[in-house]
């Protein structure tokens, strides 16, 4: 295993789904069920059985819009406000209308949702305004349940293939993808009538405080490959300056899970054990208050459970130590941390792109279509804001059905053999050098400069220095990087995605000359929100080989937001009682 083999094969399918984490399996399943005659291929860099953000399951739904508890109108309004108004509501509203059907479908797949004594869904309030959080008592089984459905529907699964570039037809439509086997370096050219990108967040962008490249908030496989693929295919990427930054357990880099512990009475506190934010729901405004407290004399910040009854704490531990991040208990045990006796130190994560928690993603409409015909995106990498796991499932389903319909109507778009040859040369270049710089050093240096120059508070002069450093690294990456086996080649290709994302993060952040979304885009030299000039999306894309940014108007709201409701998320800090 891992030796480099020189081989290329070509296959054709109707719908190609890239990424087998959360959105991808649902997209592939729905495409196949919509048109059982279609060839649907699910391509995955790891193994679909245990890949992506939910490799070990998930503790619950963070954004369930369930009749009787919340309405699509209410949810759409809350997400609009949480995003400082920069939100195309149609995809959010469509998600909100459709997600209940997906919950019922997941229920049929064998995933249980918590119910109260009357058999009703036990939905909890965690958001600032509405009630949308629903625990999943057997959430560790979610991948298995999905995998069973994929096998039953006969979706073609290709594990250990990493997509390196998309193929465009001469008219610009999407025509397929090129992938490389991560254990043999063999090439696969996949012609497709529609491609759905479900490659997750750009989670390996900033460097965690520990300095360990893999100690990221996101599953460390999520190196931003989807953002890079979309960019090079000419798709528009929206609001990348609205970074993902999350509150985490310090050093462990998993979420402290105030969502899980909050409904039991736990909360985020300062070193005096006092509440300082009204609401633990993650937003840029909340993160700004979190950051302010960290930097203040009352820092650092903690998750407080030591006031709760021992049995309640045990109940919380059973959830937190079993699902999603099961190594959390081990982390605490190493340090002798007992939730009953001591508050848990928290910190903020490294920066990344992710629409699952913020709003930085490939631009999509309410049918999950990107700006490139035939190319779709869903999940953490598609810019339906705050979409979380249920958004990945729901928008993946929408993408899968739409793509299947499109594929039924068209013939395979043309591909150019010279595109394939050029990509082979690019990909294999690091394997043809005898010595040089290994991918882990290219990656470390890129990510250290992301921390040094791009992390908020953002400063113009610093970001410009960052861009110069990235250009130097790019020169090294293109002329000196060496990969000695196919595993290192995968890391080399990831380093290339990470560097693309670093360049995109700098360009997008420099373009928007105002501050917005709290900490996510806090620009010290443009400290005010400027609605007159910047109440718009920013779209970054590749045009004639260059990175450009443009404004795109926010589509008129379908759910009106009253003037006095717009600032709700700006009022996060607990005010002193008179």
């Amino acid at each position: 295993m891992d030796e480099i083999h020189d081989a290329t094969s070509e296959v054709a399918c109707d719908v190609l789904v890239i990424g087998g984490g959360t959105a991808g399996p649902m997209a592939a399943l729905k495409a196949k069920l919509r048109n059982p005659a279609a060839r649907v291929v699910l391509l995955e860099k790891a193994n679909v059985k245990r890949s992506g953000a939910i490799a070990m399951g998930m503790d619950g739904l963070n954004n369930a819009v369930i009749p009787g508890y919340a309405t699509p109108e209410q949810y759409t309004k809350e997400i609009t406000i949480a995003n400082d108004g920069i939100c195309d509501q149609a995809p959010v509203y469509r998600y909100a209308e459709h997600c209940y059907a997906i919950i019922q479908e997941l229920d049929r797949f064998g995933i249980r949702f918590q119910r109260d004594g009357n058999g009703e869904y036990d939905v909890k309030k965690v958001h600032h305004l509405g009630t949308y959080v629903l625990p999943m008592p057997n959430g560790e089984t979610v991948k298995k349940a999905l995998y069973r459905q994929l096998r039953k529907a006969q979706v073609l699964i290709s594990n250990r293939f990493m997509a390196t570039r998309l193929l465009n037809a001469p008219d610009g439509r999407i025509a397929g993808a090129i992938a490389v086997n991560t254990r043999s370096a063999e090439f696969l050219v996949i012609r497709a009538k529609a491609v759905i990108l479900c490659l997750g967040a750009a989670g390996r962008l900033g460097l965690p405080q520990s300095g360990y490249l893999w100690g990221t908030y996101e599953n460390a496989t999520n190196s931003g490959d989807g953002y890079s693929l979309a960019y090079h295919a000419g798709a528009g990427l929206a609001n990348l300056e609205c970074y993902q930054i999350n509150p985490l357990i310090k050093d462990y880099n998993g979420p402290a899970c105030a969502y899980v512990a909050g409904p039991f009475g736990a909360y985020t506190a300062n070193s005096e054990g006092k509440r300082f934010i009204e609401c633990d729901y993650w937003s840029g405004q909340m993160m700004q208050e979190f950051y302010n407290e960290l930097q203040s004399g009352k820092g650092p910040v903690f998750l407080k459970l030591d006031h709760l009854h021992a049995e309640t704490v045990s109940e919380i531990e059973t959830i937190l130590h079993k699902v999603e991040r099961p190594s959390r208990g081990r982390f605490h045990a190493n340090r002798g941390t007992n939730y009953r006796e001591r508050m848990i130190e928290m910190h903020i994560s490294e920066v990344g792109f992710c629409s699952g928690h913020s709003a930085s993603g490939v631009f999509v409409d309410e049918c999950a279509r990107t700006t490139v015909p035939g190319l779709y995106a869903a999940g953490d990498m598609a810019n339906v804001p705050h979409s979380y796991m249920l958004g990945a499932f729901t928008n993946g389903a929408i993408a899968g059905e739409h793509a299947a319909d499109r594929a039924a109507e068209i013939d395979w778009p043309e591909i150019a053999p010279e595109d394939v040859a050029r990509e082979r040369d690019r990909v294999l270049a690091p394997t043809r050098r005898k010595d040089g710089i290994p991918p882990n050093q290219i990656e470390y240096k890129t990510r250290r400069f992301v921390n040094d120059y791009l992390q908020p508070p953002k400063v113009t002069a610093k970001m410009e220095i960052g861009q110069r450093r990235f250009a130097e690294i790019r020169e090294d990456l293109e002329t000196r990087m060496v990969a000695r086996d196919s595993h290192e080649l995968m890391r080399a290709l990831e380093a290339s995605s990470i560097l693309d994302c670093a360049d995109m993060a700098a360009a997008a952040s420099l373009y928007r000359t105002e501050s917005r979304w709290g900490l996510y885009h806090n620009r010290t030299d443009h400290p005010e929100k400027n609605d007159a000039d910047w109440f718009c999306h920013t779209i970054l894309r590749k045009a004639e080989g260059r990175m450009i940014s443009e404004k795109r108007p926010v589509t008129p709201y379908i759910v009106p937001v009253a003037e006095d409701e717009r600032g709700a998320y700006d009022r996060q800090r607990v005010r002193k009682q008179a």
Partner: protein
Amino acid sequence: MPLAHAPSTVPVTVDDSKCIADKGCTVCVDVCPLDVLRISDLTGKAYMKYDECWYCMPCETDCPTGAVSVQIPYLLR
């Protein structure tokens, strides 16, 4: 410009007396999202070849004989 190795203590360890990779089992290698485990040509047992671990635990959870253990990487511990 030759390459040097930087030593690190690995987060994933395998109990050779329990590991049945020499009988054809590849479960831990198959499920690892970061693809860092391999079967040793020398011993026929699984081991961590690349120190690139997200301490996510499918290797330990899915191992049929309980041979695999995951620790938090030292830099985070």
